[in-house]
């Protein structure tokens, strides 16, 4: 009751930016996925915070948070599977070395 909404939002923003930084700066593909997880969580914080602060009787925020969970799980499963098979074929998971698609 005693926490202004802005705190949550700022926390979420910070978390989001950290995740973004990780995604953009880490070499390792798995680390990139970690960053993405952080960003998703930032989003979730926002959703839940808005749900709580705007109208607790409308469940949109929580419902979408749930869906974000599902999406995150799916994304991680497929992403890691891809990374592993890439590792099997090319013996590396450094994102910059996986550049078959370049000119």
């Amino acid at each position, binding site marked *: 009751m005693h926490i202004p909404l802005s705190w949550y939002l700022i926390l979420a923003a910070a978390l989001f930016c950290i995740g973004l*930084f990780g995604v953009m*700066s880490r070499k390792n593909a798995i680390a990139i996925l970690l960053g993405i997880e952080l960003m998703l969580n930032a989003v979730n914080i926002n959703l839940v915070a808005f749900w709580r602060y705007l109208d607790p009787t409308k469940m949109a925020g929580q419902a979408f948070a749930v869906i974000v969970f599902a999406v995150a799980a799916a994304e991680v499963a497929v992403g890691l599977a891809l990374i592993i098979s890439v590792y099997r074929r090319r013996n590396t998971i450094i994102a910059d070395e996986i550049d078959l698609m370049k000119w």
Partner: protein
Amino acid sequence: MHPDQIIFFLCAALILISALFVVISRNLIHAALWLVAALFGVAVLFALLNANFLAVVQVVVYIGAIAILFLFAVMLTRKDIRDRGPQMRRSWWIPALLGLLILAGLVYLIFAQPGIDRTAAAIPAGVDPLRALGKALVSPGGYVLPFEVSSILLLAALVGAVYVAITKKS
């Protein structure tokens, strides 16, 4: 200083510090574990926001499944478990700069909104967020369609992941 605020600050500190370590720690295992810590903090925040269900699900899904998955992946993609050498790309400062810019912009935007400092009203009596959420997720008036779609998505992801990661024996 209200206990809620104390808890919030503790959680925020935990989350942000862990997140930082997630993105900067050299050892990927540590990064994953730091991620667990951050996610745990988020779970606590959810609890603080009266979203018990989400809090618990956060722990179950992220820590129980995703983090474990990460640890597995890291171990499966390392010839020796420790990482040597820098984990950052050479021009890591550009992303850092961009991140800071975006953060500044977001903060500015947040405070530009009116009534952003409101505090939460008490949950009206007779509203059980858990039941409400359950009903919303499965009632045709609510979010049954996105919910089912996401379940389909999960199924597809499961199959796809198995297919992609399986070692094909000729």
